[in-house]
């Protein structure tokens, strides 16, 4: 079980964090497609924290909401206060290669994959919650 587990906010730590998150996902999701999608979403959220928040560590919780049959992730960092859901860049998936921008894909991906995302700041920390109902 992952409950507010602390990790140093460094790129080389991410594979270990993702292994632990994926183990939690696999307790509830059996479809490889959804296991993979949720891992992609978690990786993107963590990459943003590590690369841009300025936080020295991050915390991950993962719990299952029985009533809603929903897996809930919480990602917390102590970096600059920033709501990633405020400015979600538009991504046109039909754009041709020349027009495609390198950035902006990450938030698009986790917005597409997750059912619901919530941000709040508490005690000077960024909290991002991501929900996915069992499929």
């Amino acid at each position, binding site marked *: 079980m992952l409950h507010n587990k602390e990790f140093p906010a460094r*790129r*080389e730590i*991410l*594979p270990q964090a*993702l292994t632990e998150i994926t183990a939690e996902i696999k307790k509830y999701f059996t479809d*490889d*497609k959804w296991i*993979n*999608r949720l*891992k*992609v979403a978690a*990786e*993107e959220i963590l*990459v943003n924290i590590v690369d841009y928040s300025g936080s020295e560590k991050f915390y991950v919780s993962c719990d299952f909401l029985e009533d809603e049959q929903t897996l809930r992730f919480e990602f917390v960092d102590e970096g600059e206060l920033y709501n990633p859901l405020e400015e979600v860049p538009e*991504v*046109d*998936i*039909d*754009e*041709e*290669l*020349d027009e*495609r921008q*390198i*950035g902006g*894909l*990450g938030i*698009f*991906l986790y917005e*597409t*994959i997750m059912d619901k995302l919530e941000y709040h700041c508490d005690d000077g920390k960024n909290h991002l919650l991501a929900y996915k109902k069992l499929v």
Partner: protein
Amino acid sequence: MTVTVERNDNIKIIALDGQIDVATSDQTCADIVKLLEKKPTIIKMPKVTYVSSSGLRALLMIAKTAKSQGIKVTYAEAVPEVVDVLQMTGFIKMLHCVPTMADALKELGE
């Protein structure tokens, strides 16, 4: 991530083995870009088990570099989980991803 040249005559075939994620995407991109020559290229993906958004950025960089050098690149044999992410982002069409090596060779005129 292992990057191997499987064939290099009139067509180059580059085979990938591993994950393209935050830990490997920069090196994978650099390795593939270094291997690009002025000839049609197939990037073989059946052993790529995971592509994250960092991986997608790497694939996009490779495609843009190849195009700027006039090199036609086709991606082939991606596994269903990878195809799913490529489809979600429109990359499947934009990068000319095809199901089989036969399709890729046909796409490149062989």
